[in-house]
C-alpha cells in the first residue's frame, strides 16, 4: 500500500515542478552566455543590461526550482491530511505510519531531485561561462579523510532535509489541532516562531564561536583538521537523527491521538 501512496504523492509533487525543472535548463544555458558576455573584453552598455536581465531571469528560474518543492510538500501534506480531503485519506486501509512515511519519502525524493537539478544548472552555467575546472582541482589529491568527510556531509545534508520537512509537518499538524478556522495561518505562525528561535540561537552560537573555532581549526595541521571534522560530525549526525525521529514521533502522535477534522 505504501507504494500506491507514494505514487500518488509523487504524482502531485512532480505535477508542476517538472515544468520549472525543464525550463531551468535553457535558462541556465542563457545565464552561462550572459556571464560570458559580461566577462568579454569590451561589453557595451546595452549588452551589459541584457546580460544582467538574463542572469536575473536565470536566478529566478533556479530559485523557483529550489523553492517549489517545499511549497508543494506543505500543500500536499495539509490538503491530504488536514482539509476535507483528510476524511477520505483516513478511511483508506493504511496505517498512520504509512501515510506519514509516504509523505516523508516523496518529499525527500523531490527535494533531492531539486538539489540535483540546481547543481546541474549551476554546472551548466559554469561550463558555458568558461570556468576552468582543471585549474580549480589542480594539485588536489584524494585522501581517505576527505571521503569520510564527504560521506558525513551527504548524510548530514540528507538528515537536515528530512528534519526540515518534518518540522514543517509538525507546524502544520499543530496548527490544524489548535485552531479550527485559521489552520494555515496558525501553521505559518508556528513555523516562523520555531525557525526564528532556532536560527536566533544558531546565529548567537555562530557569532560567539566562529572566530574562536576558526582560530582553533586553522591552527591544526590538515590531517588533524580532517580527523577532528570527521569525529565531530558523528555526534552531530546522531543528534540530528534523534531530532528527526523525535519530530516523526510528534507528527505521528498528533495524527494518531489529536486529529479532529470536524
Amino acid at each position, binding site marked *: 500500500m505504501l507504494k500506491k501512496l507514494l505514487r500518488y504523492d509523487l504524482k502531485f509533487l512532480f505535477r508542476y515542478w517538472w515544468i520549472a525543472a525543464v525550463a531551468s535548463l535553457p535558462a541556465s544555458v542563457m545565464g552561462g552566455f550572459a556571464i560570458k558576455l559580461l566577462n568579454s573584453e569590451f561589453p557595451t552598455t546595452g549588452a551589459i543590461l541584457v546580460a544582467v536581465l538574463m542572469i536575473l531571469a536565470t536566478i529566478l528560474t533556479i530559485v523557483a526550482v529550489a523553492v517549489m518543492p517545499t511549497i508543494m510538500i506543505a500543500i500536499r501534506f495539509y490538503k491530504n491530511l488536514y482539509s476535507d480531503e483528510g476524511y477520505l485519506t483516513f478511511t483508506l486501509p493504511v496505517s498512520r505510519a504509512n501515510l506519514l512515511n509516504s509523505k516523508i519519502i516523496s518529499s525527500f525524493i523531490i527535494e533531492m531531485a531539486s538539489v540535483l537539478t540546481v547543481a546541474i544548472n549551476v554546472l551548466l552555467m559554469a561550463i558555458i561561462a568558461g570556468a576552468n575546472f582543471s585549474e580549480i582541482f589542480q594539485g588536489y589529491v584524494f585522501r581517505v579523510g576527505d571521503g569520510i568527510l564527504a560521506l558525513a556531509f551527504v548524510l548530514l545534508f540528507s538528515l537536515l532535509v528530512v528534519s526540515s520537512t518534518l518540522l514543517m509537518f509538525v507546524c502544520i499538524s499543530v496548527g490544524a489541532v489548535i485552531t479550527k478556522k485559521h489552520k494555515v495561518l496558525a501553521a505559518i505562525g508556528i513555523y516562523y516562531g520555531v525557525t526564528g528561535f532556532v536560527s536566533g540561537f544558531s546565529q548567537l552560537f555562530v557569532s560567539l*564561536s566562529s572566530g*574562536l573555532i576558526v*582560530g582553533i581549526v586553522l591552527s*591544526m595541521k590538515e590531517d588533524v583538521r580532517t*580527523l577532528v571534522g570527521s569525529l*565531530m560530525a*558523528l555526534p552531530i549526525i546522531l543528534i540530528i537523527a*534523534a531530532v528527526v525521529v523525535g519530530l*516523526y514521533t510528534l507528527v505521528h502522535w498528533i495524527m494518531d491521538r489529536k486529529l479532529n477534522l470536524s
Partner: protein
Amino acid sequence: MNKKLCLFFAIVLALLTFGAMAFAAEDTGELTFNESYNFAFYKGNTYIYATEADGWIIDSSTLDYIDSVTLFDDLYEDVKAIYAYGNDEVIVVTLSFNAGGRVTILYINNNDVINSVGNGIFETYTLIPNGRTYVESSYIEVPREKLFGKKITISGKELVQYSSTSVSGHAFGEIITEYDMGKLIFHEDGRVLFLNYYECVVGAGYLNTETEIFLREEVIVYEITDEEILEQLGSGKQQTTQPVEESEDVIVIILIAMLALVFVVIPLVAAILSAVFSFKAKKPVYKKLFRTISALLWASLVVMVIAVVIIIAVIGLEALGF
C-alpha cells in the same frame, strides 16, 4: 548664445587652462620624489602625501599598490599633471601605469601643514588583540591648538599599549577634506596624550611607519589639559582602558556553556526522558520510536566523549611535536 555652446567653450577653456598649468609645471622639471613616493620635492620645498583624490586614499595599502612590482615596473609617466593651489601649498600628482591604472596623490607642503590645519577630529577606533577594530564614538571636533598641551615623552611600548584613537585633520577647504594628523593615547594613569604625526613619523603615520614609532625608546607627545575635551573623551577613555582579555574569557565561557548545552545537557535530558517514555508507552510503535531516540542520543553522548578525548590527545601530541 546657445547654453550648450557656452558650456562647451567653458569646458574647452578650463581644459586649456589646466593643460597650460600642467605643461608649465612639467616644464619646470623640479618635481621629484623619494623611492616610495611618500615625499615630493618641488621648488625647494618638501611635500608629504596627504589625502585622497579621484577616489584614492593614500594609505599603506595604496603604497603597497604603488610599490607592487607589476604596476611599479609599468610606470610610464611619473607626473601627468601638476596643479598648484594658493601659495604652492598643495600639488596634485597623477602616476600613470601602462597597465591602465592611475594613482592620484595630493601632496601638502610639510613645513606649512601644521599651521594650515583648521580643526582636529577625534575618531575613536580601538584595536583589540585579535585584530578587529570597532568604533567607540563617532567623533568630536576640537580646535587644533587645544591638542598641543604640555610636551612630554613616553616610550614606544606605552604608545602601543594605550594608543587607540586616530585624529583626523580638516584643511584647505575644498581641496582636502580630511587626513590623518595624529593619535590619541589614553594612558593608564589617566592622562590623555596627543601624538603629532608630522613631528615624529615619516610618511604621516600610516601603518608601515606606525610600527616604527612603536619600536622607539622615546616618543614626543602632548598632554591634553583642556577640561572640556577631556570630559568629551571620557567614555572613550573608559572603554579603551578596559582589559580585553576578560571579555574574551567571558566569550569562551559562554561558548563552552552553549556547546555543553547543545551536545551534552539537552541530549542527556532528552535521552533520559525518551527512555522513561519508552517504558510508559503502551503502543509498540511509540515504544519503538522512543527507544530509537534514546539509543541515538546515548550513542551521540558516548561518541562525543570519545571524540573529545581523541581530539585532546591528538592536539596534545601535536603540541609535543609527535
